[in-house]
Protein backbone atom coordinates (compact mmCIF):
# COMPACT_ATOMS: atom_id res chain seq x y z
CA UNK A 1 0.00 0.00 0.00
CA UNK A 2 1.48 3.30 -1.03
CA UNK A 3 1.31 5.89 1.68
CA UNK A 4 2.36 8.89 -0.40
CA UNK A 5 -0.01 11.82 -0.03
CA UNK A 6 -1.10 12.84 -3.50
CA UNK A 7 -3.82 15.39 -2.72
CA UNK A 8 -4.18 18.12 -0.14
CA UNK A 9 -6.31 21.25 0.16
CA UNK A 10 -3.66 23.33 1.90
CA UNK A 11 -0.33 21.85 0.81
CA UNK A 12 1.08 21.63 -2.70
CA UNK A 13 1.87 17.93 -3.04
CA UNK A 14 3.46 18.18 -6.48
CA UNK A 15 6.96 16.76 -6.32
CA UNK A 16 9.76 19.02 -7.41
CA UNK A 17 12.64 16.61 -6.90
CA UNK A 18 13.53 13.92 -9.44
CA UNK A 19 12.71 10.27 -8.78
CA UNK A 20 15.76 8.17 -8.03
CA UNK A 21 16.40 4.56 -7.19
CA UNK A 22 17.94 3.33 -3.96
CA UNK A 23 18.40 -0.23 -2.72
CA UNK A 24 16.93 -1.39 0.56
CA UNK A 25 18.16 -4.80 1.75
CA UNK A 26 19.06 -5.59 -1.82
CA UNK A 27 15.70 -4.58 -3.33
CA UNK A 28 15.23 -1.52 -5.54
CA UNK A 29 13.02 1.17 -4.06
CA UNK A 30 11.80 4.33 -5.76
CA UNK A 31 12.36 7.59 -3.87
CA UNK A 32 12.53 11.35 -4.36
CA UNK A 33 16.00 12.83 -4.28
CA UNK A 34 16.57 14.83 -1.12
CA UNK A 35 13.69 13.48 0.93
CA UNK A 36 14.50 11.80 4.25
CA UNK A 37 15.35 8.13 3.70
CA UNK A 38 12.74 7.24 6.31
CA UNK A 39 9.98 8.95 4.33
CA UNK A 40 10.90 6.99 1.21
CA UNK A 41 10.82 3.73 3.15
CA UNK A 42 7.45 4.48 4.76
CA UNK A 43 6.00 5.49 1.41
CA UNK A 44 6.98 2.05 0.14
CA UNK A 45 5.48 0.24 3.11
CA UNK A 46 8.77 -0.44 4.88
CA UNK A 47 8.26 0.22 8.60
CA UNK A 48 11.07 -1.66 10.32
CA UNK A 49 14.45 0.10 10.36
CA UNK A 50 16.47 -1.96 12.78
CA UNK A 51 16.44 -4.69 15.40
CA UNK A 52 17.54 -4.26 18.99
CA UNK A 53 20.70 -5.80 20.35
CA UNK A 54 19.46 -8.10 23.11
CA UNK A 55 15.94 -9.12 22.18
CA UNK A 56 16.03 -8.62 18.42
CA UNK A 57 12.89 -6.50 18.49
CA UNK A 58 11.93 -4.33 15.55
CA UNK A 59 12.14 -0.55 15.73
CA UNK A 60 10.78 2.11 13.36
CA UNK A 61 9.83 5.78 13.16
CA UNK A 62 9.26 7.30 16.60
CA UNK A 63 10.31 10.94 16.92
CA UNK A 64 11.04 11.81 13.30
CA UNK A 65 13.45 14.62 14.16
CA UNK A 66 16.75 12.92 14.94
CA UNK A 67 16.35 12.54 18.71
CA UNK A 68 15.42 8.94 19.46
CA UNK A 69 17.59 6.83 17.05
CA UNK A 70 14.84 4.25 16.48
CA UNK A 71 15.17 4.87 12.73
CA UNK A 72 18.93 4.19 12.59
CA UNK A 73 20.01 2.03 9.66
CA UNK A 74 23.19 1.14 7.75
CA UNK A 75 23.55 3.60 4.87
CA UNK A 76 26.30 3.05 2.27
CA UNK A 77 28.02 0.79 4.73
CA UNK A 78 27.93 3.23 7.66
CA UNK A 79 25.81 2.08 10.65
CA UNK A 80 23.71 4.16 13.07
CA UNK A 81 22.62 6.64 10.43
CA UNK A 82 19.45 8.45 11.55
CA UNK A 83 17.32 7.98 8.44
CA UNK A 84 14.75 10.58 9.49
CA UNK A 85 17.28 13.40 9.05
CA UNK A 86 19.42 11.96 6.23
CA UNK A 87 18.55 12.73 2.61
CA UNK A 88 18.10 10.24 -0.19
CA UNK A 89 20.75 10.25 -2.92
CA UNK A 90 20.55 8.20 -6.10
CA UNK A 91 22.14 4.79 -5.72
CA UNK A 92 22.16 4.83 -1.92
CA UNK A 93 22.45 1.40 -0.33
CA UNK A 94 20.27 1.11 2.75
CA UNK A 95 20.23 -1.92 5.04
CA UNK A 96 18.19 -2.88 8.07
CA UNK A 97 20.56 -2.69 11.01
CA UNK A 98 20.75 -5.66 13.35
CA UNK A 99 22.04 -4.61 16.75
CA UNK A 100 24.76 -2.03 17.11
CA UNK A 101 26.27 -2.19 13.67
CA UNK A 102 29.92 -2.90 12.87
CA UNK A 103 32.48 -0.21 13.43
CA UNK A 104 33.63 1.25 10.14
CA UNK A 105 37.31 1.97 9.52
CA UNK A 106 37.89 5.70 8.86
Amino acid at each position, binding site marked *: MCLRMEHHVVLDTAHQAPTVEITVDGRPVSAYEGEPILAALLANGIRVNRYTVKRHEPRG*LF*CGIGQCTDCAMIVDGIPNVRTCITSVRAGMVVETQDGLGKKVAP
Partner: protein
Amino acid sequence: MMIRKEVVVVGAGPAGLSAAIEAARAGADTLLVDLNLKPGGQLFKQIHKFFGSSSHRSGTRGIDIGKLLVREAQEAGVELWLKSTVVGLFPGYKVGIQRGGDDETKELVTVHAKKIVIATGASENVVRFKGWTTPGVMGAGAAQTMVNVNHVKPGQRIVMLGSGNVGLIVSYQLMQAGCEVVALVEAAPNIGGYAVHAAKICRAGVPLYTKHTIVEAVAGEDGCLRQVVIAQVDETFQPIPGTEQTLEADCVAIGAGLKPSAELLRLLNCRFMFSGAFGGYIPLHNEKMETSLSGIYVAGDSTGVEEANTALEEGRIAGVSAAEQLGLIDGARADARRTEIWERLKALRQGPFGERRQTAEDEILREYAAQVGVPAEEVMPEVLTEAI
Protein backbone atom coordinates in the same frame (compact mmCIF):
# COMPACT_ATOMS: atom_id res chain seq x y z
CA MET B 1 39.35 24.04 13.10
CA MET B 2 38.29 27.26 14.85
CA ILE B 3 35.85 29.75 13.38
CA ARG B 4 34.94 33.08 14.99
CA LYS B 5 31.41 34.46 15.09
CA GLU B 6 29.81 37.15 17.22
CA VAL B 7 26.51 35.38 17.86
CA VAL B 8 25.81 31.67 17.55
CA VAL B 9 22.15 30.63 17.70
CA VAL B 10 21.47 26.93 18.28
CA GLY B 11 18.20 25.79 16.72
CA ALA B 12 16.53 27.33 13.67
CA GLY B 13 12.92 27.15 14.78
CA PRO B 14 10.81 30.28 15.34
CA ALA B 15 12.77 31.32 18.44
CA GLY B 16 16.18 30.77 16.87
CA LEU B 17 15.25 32.41 13.58
CA SER B 18 13.86 35.47 15.39
CA ALA B 19 16.94 35.75 17.60
CA ALA B 20 19.27 35.45 14.61
CA ILE B 21 17.29 38.04 12.64
CA GLU B 22 17.41 40.58 15.47
CA ALA B 23 21.12 40.05 16.08
CA ALA B 24 22.04 40.20 12.40
CA ARG B 25 19.89 43.27 11.75
CA ALA B 26 21.72 45.02 14.58
CA GLY B 27 24.96 44.23 12.79
CA ALA B 28 26.20 41.10 14.56
CA ASP B 29 28.06 38.43 12.56
CA THR B 30 25.51 35.67 13.24
CA LEU B 31 25.57 31.91 12.73
CA LEU B 32 22.38 29.84 13.00
CA VAL B 33 22.83 26.08 13.42
CA ASP B 34 20.27 23.27 13.12
CA LEU B 35 20.55 19.50 12.88
CA ASN B 36 17.60 19.14 10.54
CA LEU B 37 17.60 19.14 6.76
CA LYS B 38 15.53 22.33 6.66
CA PRO B 39 15.18 25.37 8.94
CA GLY B 40 11.94 26.39 10.62
CA GLY B 41 11.78 23.90 13.47
CA GLN B 42 8.17 22.96 14.04
CA LEU B 43 6.84 25.88 11.99
CA PHE B 44 6.76 24.03 8.67
CA LYS B 45 4.58 21.38 10.21
CA GLN B 46 1.98 23.91 11.37
CA ILE B 47 -0.20 24.11 8.30
CA HIS B 48 -3.10 25.57 10.25
CA LYS B 49 -3.84 29.25 10.78
CA PHE B 50 -2.43 30.72 13.97
CA PHE B 51 -4.37 32.37 16.78
CA GLY B 52 -3.20 35.52 18.55
CA SER B 53 -3.48 39.09 17.32
CA SER B 54 -2.59 40.80 14.10
CA SER B 55 0.85 41.66 15.54
CA HIS B 56 1.36 37.91 15.76
CA ARG B 57 0.21 37.44 12.17
CA SER B 58 -2.91 35.68 13.42
CA GLY B 59 -4.94 34.01 10.71
CA THR B 60 -1.71 33.19 8.86
CA ARG B 61 -0.58 29.61 8.48
CA GLY B 62 2.51 28.52 10.39
CA ILE B 63 4.19 27.42 7.16
CA ASP B 64 3.85 30.92 5.70
CA ILE B 65 5.25 32.50 8.85
CA GLY B 66 8.13 30.04 8.56
CA LYS B 67 8.85 31.03 4.95
CA LEU B 68 8.77 34.70 5.91
CA LEU B 69 11.22 34.19 8.77
CA VAL B 70 13.64 32.19 6.64
CA ARG B 71 13.59 34.95 4.01
CA GLU B 72 14.10 37.62 6.67
CA ALA B 73 17.06 35.68 8.05
CA GLN B 74 18.61 35.42 4.58
CA GLU B 75 18.06 39.11 3.93
CA ALA B 76 19.59 40.01 7.29
CA GLY B 77 22.73 38.10 6.35
CA VAL B 78 22.43 35.26 8.85
CA GLU B 79 24.78 32.36 8.02
CA LEU B 80 22.84 29.08 8.22
CA TRP B 81 24.34 25.62 8.81
CA LEU B 82 21.87 22.78 8.39
CA LYS B 83 22.41 19.05 9.08
CA SER B 84 24.76 20.29 11.79
CA THR B 85 24.50 19.12 15.38
CA VAL B 86 25.84 21.17 18.28
CA VAL B 87 27.61 18.51 20.31
CA GLY B 88 29.10 20.64 23.06
CA LEU B 89 29.25 24.01 24.75
CA PHE B 90 32.56 24.87 26.39
CA PRO B 91 33.74 27.66 28.68
CA GLY B 92 34.78 30.74 26.80
CA TYR B 93 31.74 30.62 24.51
CA LYS B 94 33.12 27.79 22.40
CA VAL B 95 30.55 25.75 20.51
CA GLY B 96 31.41 22.27 19.27
CA ILE B 97 29.55 21.50 16.04
CA GLN B 98 29.41 18.35 13.94
CA ARG B 99 29.00 20.20 10.65
CA GLY B 100 27.16 18.41 7.84
CA GLY B 101 27.89 18.86 4.18
CA ASP B 102 25.97 18.29 0.97
CA ASP B 103 27.52 14.89 0.43
CA GLU B 104 26.61 13.69 3.93
CA THR B 105 30.18 14.06 5.22
CA LYS B 106 30.53 15.50 8.67
CA GLU B 107 33.43 17.41 10.19
CA LEU B 108 33.99 18.53 13.75
CA VAL B 109 34.29 22.29 14.03
CA THR B 110 34.69 24.62 17.00
CA VAL B 111 33.04 28.01 16.70
CA HIS B 112 34.29 30.69 19.04
CA ALA B 113 31.33 32.96 19.78
CA LYS B 114 30.89 36.10 21.85
CA LYS B 115 27.22 35.46 22.62
CA ILE B 116 25.19 32.28 22.36
CA VAL B 117 21.43 31.78 22.09
CA ILE B 118 20.03 28.34 22.85
CA ALA B 119 16.72 27.75 21.08
CA THR B 120 16.65 23.97 20.99
CA GLY B 121 12.95 23.50 21.47
CA ALA B 122 11.31 20.56 23.13
CA SER B 123 10.98 16.81 22.78
CA GLU B 124 7.87 14.67 22.89
CA ASN B 125 6.80 12.86 26.02
CA VAL B 126 6.27 9.15 25.93
CA VAL B 127 3.44 7.09 27.35
CA ARG B 128 4.40 3.48 27.88
CA PHE B 129 1.99 0.64 27.39
CA LYS B 130 2.53 -2.98 26.42
CA GLY B 131 3.93 -3.01 22.88
CA TRP B 132 4.78 0.70 22.84
CA THR B 133 8.01 0.04 20.92
CA THR B 134 6.15 -1.64 18.05
CA PRO B 135 6.84 0.06 14.70
CA GLY B 136 3.74 2.14 14.01
CA VAL B 137 3.72 3.67 17.49
CA MET B 138 5.23 7.13 17.27
CA GLY B 139 5.09 10.64 18.65
CA ALA B 140 2.28 12.85 17.36
CA GLY B 141 4.95 15.27 16.16
CA ALA B 142 6.52 12.51 14.10
CA ALA B 143 3.18 11.77 12.45
CA GLN B 144 2.77 15.48 11.79
CA THR B 145 6.25 15.75 10.28
CA MET B 146 5.57 12.84 7.98
CA VAL B 147 2.35 14.27 6.54
CA ASN B 148 3.05 17.98 6.48
CA VAL B 149 6.72 18.01 5.56
CA ASN B 150 7.37 14.73 3.78
CA HIS B 151 3.87 14.21 2.34
CA VAL B 152 3.80 10.58 3.48
CA LYS B 153 1.07 9.11 5.65
CA PRO B 154 2.42 7.37 8.79
CA GLY B 155 -0.37 4.81 8.49
CA GLN B 156 -3.94 4.58 7.33
CA ARG B 157 -5.90 4.08 10.59
CA ILE B 158 -4.63 6.20 13.45
CA VAL B 159 -5.30 6.14 17.17
CA MET B 160 -4.36 9.49 18.70
CA LEU B 161 -3.41 9.45 22.37
CA GLY B 162 -3.82 12.83 24.04
CA SER B 163 -6.32 15.64 23.56
CA GLY B 164 -4.06 18.64 24.09
CA ASN B 165 -3.61 21.00 21.18
CA VAL B 166 -1.02 18.75 19.57
CA GLY B 167 -3.31 15.71 19.69
CA LEU B 168 -6.26 17.70 18.37
CA ILE B 169 -4.43 19.57 15.62
CA VAL B 170 -2.46 16.56 14.42
CA SER B 171 -5.66 14.48 14.30
CA TYR B 172 -7.15 17.13 12.05
CA GLN B 173 -4.04 17.27 9.87
CA LEU B 174 -3.92 13.48 9.53
CA MET B 175 -7.48 13.58 8.22
CA GLN B 176 -6.49 16.34 5.82
CA ALA B 177 -3.79 13.97 4.60
CA GLY B 178 -6.39 11.29 3.91
CA CYS B 179 -5.93 9.14 7.01
CA GLU B 180 -8.74 7.87 9.20
CA VAL B 181 -8.50 8.81 12.88
CA VAL B 182 -10.31 5.90 14.47
CA ALA B 183 -10.15 7.24 18.01
CA LEU B 184 -8.90 10.12 20.11
CA VAL B 185 -8.03 8.74 23.53
CA GLU B 186 -7.67 10.98 26.58
CA ALA B 187 -7.11 9.83 30.16
CA ALA B 188 -8.58 12.96 31.76
CA PRO B 189 -12.33 13.62 31.87
CA ASN B 190 -11.85 16.81 29.82
CA ILE B 191 -10.29 17.74 26.56
CA GLY B 192 -6.95 19.40 27.19
CA GLY B 193 -6.66 21.68 24.17
CA TYR B 194 -8.78 24.38 22.59
CA ALA B 195 -12.45 23.57 22.27
CA VAL B 196 -12.56 24.80 18.68
CA HIS B 197 -9.94 22.24 17.67
CA ALA B 198 -11.96 19.51 19.36
CA ALA B 199 -15.12 20.75 17.66
CA LYS B 200 -13.51 20.35 14.22
CA ILE B 201 -12.59 16.75 14.73
CA CYS B 202 -15.87 15.87 16.45
CA ARG B 203 -17.90 17.10 13.49
CA ALA B 204 -15.57 15.06 11.29
CA GLY B 205 -16.86 12.03 13.16
CA VAL B 206 -13.78 11.11 15.20
CA PRO B 207 -14.86 9.12 18.29
CA LEU B 208 -13.60 10.77 21.46
CA TYR B 209 -12.79 8.48 24.39
CA THR B 210 -12.23 10.58 27.50
CA LYS B 211 -11.28 8.71 30.69
CA HIS B 212 -9.53 6.12 28.56
CA THR B 213 -6.00 5.05 27.88
CA ILE B 214 -4.13 2.63 25.63
CA VAL B 215 -3.26 -0.62 27.38
CA GLU B 216 -1.68 -2.52 24.50
CA ALA B 217 -0.31 -2.09 21.01
CA VAL B 218 -0.60 -5.43 19.24
CA ALA B 219 1.78 -6.35 16.44
CA GLY B 220 0.97 -8.44 13.40
CA GLU B 221 3.18 -11.13 11.88
CA ASP B 222 5.43 -8.53 10.32
CA GLY B 223 6.19 -7.12 13.76
CA CYS B 224 4.36 -3.89 12.99
CA LEU B 225 1.27 -2.42 14.61
CA ARG B 226 -2.04 -4.05 13.73
CA GLN B 227 -4.41 -3.44 16.66
CA VAL B 228 -4.72 -1.15 19.66
CA VAL B 229 -6.45 -2.06 22.91
CA ILE B 230 -7.92 0.79 24.91
CA ALA B 231 -9.59 0.70 28.32
CA GLN B 232 -11.45 3.05 30.59
CA VAL B 233 -9.51 4.49 33.53
CA ASP B 234 -10.56 5.30 37.07
CA GLU B 235 -9.92 8.56 38.99
CA THR B 236 -6.31 7.54 39.57
CA PHE B 237 -5.87 6.85 35.84
CA GLN B 238 -5.59 3.10 36.34
CA PRO B 239 -7.16 0.93 33.64
CA ILE B 240 -10.40 -0.68 34.74
CA PRO B 241 -10.35 -4.43 33.97
CA GLY B 242 -13.18 -5.59 31.76
CA THR B 243 -13.53 -2.29 29.90
CA GLU B 244 -11.09 -3.17 27.12
CA GLN B 245 -11.94 -2.50 23.48
CA THR B 246 -9.83 -3.50 20.49
CA LEU B 247 -9.43 -1.12 17.57
CA GLU B 248 -7.96 -1.94 14.18
CA ALA B 249 -5.14 0.52 13.64
CA ASP B 250 -1.72 0.67 12.02
CA CYS B 251 -0.51 3.81 13.76
CA VAL B 252 -0.61 5.21 17.28
CA ALA B 253 0.34 8.86 17.59
CA ILE B 254 1.26 9.82 21.13
CA GLY B 255 0.35 13.45 21.86
CA ALA B 256 1.06 13.44 25.56
CA GLY B 257 2.85 16.73 25.83
CA LEU B 258 6.33 18.05 25.30
CA LYS B 259 9.24 18.69 27.61
CA PRO B 260 11.81 21.44 27.18
CA SER B 261 15.20 20.35 25.74
CA ALA B 262 17.90 22.63 27.08
CA GLU B 263 20.43 19.94 27.96
CA LEU B 264 23.28 21.83 26.31
CA LEU B 265 23.07 24.40 29.09
CA ARG B 266 23.79 21.67 31.64
CA LEU B 267 27.25 21.46 30.14
CA LEU B 268 27.91 24.98 31.40
CA ASN B 269 26.22 24.41 34.76
CA CYS B 270 23.49 26.94 34.07
CA ARG B 271 20.87 27.02 36.80
CA PHE B 272 17.62 25.18 36.12
CA MET B 273 14.30 24.90 37.90
CA PHE B 274 11.33 22.60 37.57
CA SER B 275 8.21 24.19 36.12
CA GLY B 276 5.19 21.92 35.80
CA ALA B 277 3.22 24.48 33.82
CA PHE B 278 6.07 24.69 31.32
CA GLY B 279 6.55 20.96 30.91
CA GLY B 280 9.67 20.14 32.92
CA TYR B 281 13.09 21.48 33.82
CA ILE B 282 13.78 24.88 32.33
CA PRO B 283 16.88 27.10 32.49
CA LEU B 284 16.44 30.08 34.79
CA HIS B 285 16.38 33.30 32.78
CA ASN B 286 15.80 37.00 33.38
CA GLU B 287 13.85 39.66 31.45
CA LYS B 288 16.60 39.72 28.85
CA MET B 289 16.22 35.94 28.35
CA GLU B 290 19.75 35.63 29.72
CA THR B 291 20.64 32.48 31.67
CA SER B 292 22.67 32.36 34.88
CA LEU B 293 25.76 32.67 32.69
CA SER B 294 26.47 36.04 31.15
CA GLY B 295 26.22 36.13 27.39
CA ILE B 296 24.27 32.87 27.12
CA TYR B 297 20.62 33.39 26.21
CA VAL B 298 17.68 31.09 25.80
CA ALA B 299 14.37 31.35 23.94
CA GLY B 300 11.37 29.32 22.79
CA ASP B 301 10.14 25.94 23.95
CA SER B 302 13.50 25.15 25.57
CA THR B 303 12.57 27.77 28.18
CA GLY B 304 9.10 26.34 28.63
CA VAL B 305 6.66 24.65 26.27
CA GLU B 306 4.21 27.14 24.81
CA GLU B 307 3.59 27.98 21.18
CA ALA B 308 5.17 29.48 18.10
CA ASN B 309 4.06 33.03 18.89
CA THR B 310 5.71 33.07 22.31
CA ALA B 311 8.84 31.46 20.82
CA LEU B 312 9.02 34.22 18.20
CA GLU B 313 8.76 36.93 20.83
CA GLU B 314 11.28 35.36 23.22
CA GLY B 315 13.69 34.91 20.32
CA ARG B 316 13.39 38.61 19.56
CA ILE B 317 14.23 39.49 23.17
CA ALA B 318 17.26 37.18 23.15
CA GLY B 319 18.55 38.59 19.85
CA VAL B 320 18.10 42.19 20.96
CA SER B 321 19.78 41.49 24.30
CA ALA B 322 22.73 39.72 22.70
CA ALA B 323 23.19 42.61 20.28
CA GLU B 324 22.93 45.09 23.17
CA GLN B 325 25.62 43.25 25.09
CA LEU B 326 27.85 43.42 22.01
CA GLY B 327 27.37 47.19 21.99
CA LEU B 328 25.39 47.12 18.74
CA ILE B 329 22.15 48.48 20.24
CA ASP B 330 22.13 51.15 22.95
CA GLY B 331 20.55 50.35 26.31
CA ALA B 332 17.57 52.67 26.00
CA ARG B 333 16.52 51.30 22.64
CA ALA B 334 17.00 47.72 23.81
CA ASP B 335 14.88 48.41 26.90
CA ALA B 336 12.13 49.94 24.76
CA ARG B 337 12.10 46.93 22.41
CA ARG B 338 12.00 44.52 25.33
CA THR B 339 9.15 46.37 27.04
CA GLU B 340 7.10 46.31 23.85
CA ILE B 341 7.76 42.57 23.37
CA TRP B 342 6.96 41.68 26.98
CA GLU B 343 3.58 43.44 26.54
CA ARG B 344 2.84 41.21 23.57
CA LEU B 345 3.89 38.13 25.53
CA LYS B 346 1.51 39.15 28.32
CA ALA B 347 -1.30 39.41 25.79
CA LEU B 348 -0.60 35.85 24.65
CA ARG B 349 -0.57 34.57 28.22
CA GLN B 350 -4.11 35.65 29.03
CA GLY B 351 -7.28 33.67 29.48
CA PRO B 352 -7.81 30.25 31.06
CA PHE B 353 -5.05 28.62 29.00
CA GLY B 354 -2.45 31.36 29.27
CA GLU B 355 -2.83 32.47 32.89
CA ARG B 356 -1.09 29.41 34.27
CA ARG B 357 1.91 30.08 32.07
CA GLN B 358 2.02 33.75 33.03
CA THR B 359 2.10 32.74 36.69
CA ALA B 360 4.87 30.27 35.91
CA GLU B 361 6.88 32.86 33.98
CA ASP B 362 6.56 35.32 36.88
CA GLU B 363 7.88 32.62 39.17
CA ILE B 364 10.89 31.98 36.92
CA LEU B 365 11.81 35.64 36.88
CA ARG B 366 11.46 35.80 40.68
CA GLU B 367 13.62 32.71 41.15
CA TYR B 368 16.25 34.14 38.84
CA ALA B 369 16.35 37.33 40.91
CA ALA B 370 16.60 35.31 44.11
CA GLN B 371 19.05 32.61 43.04
CA VAL B 372 21.16 34.33 40.39
CA GLY B 373 20.68 38.09 40.53
CA VAL B 374 23.48 39.09 38.20
CA PRO B 375 24.60 36.47 35.64
CA ALA B 376 28.01 35.00 36.32
CA GLU B 377 30.93 35.85 34.08
CA GLU B 378 32.45 32.39 34.32
CA VAL B 379 31.08 28.90 34.45
CA MET B 380 30.18 28.15 38.06
CA PRO B 381 31.00 24.83 39.67
CA GLU B 382 28.05 22.48 39.70
CA VAL B 383 25.57 23.14 42.50
CA LEU B 384 25.28 19.67 43.99
CA THR B 385 22.40 20.48 46.33
CA GLU B 386 20.07 20.95 43.35
CA ALA B 387 18.07 17.92 42.30
CA ILE B 388 18.51 17.44 38.57
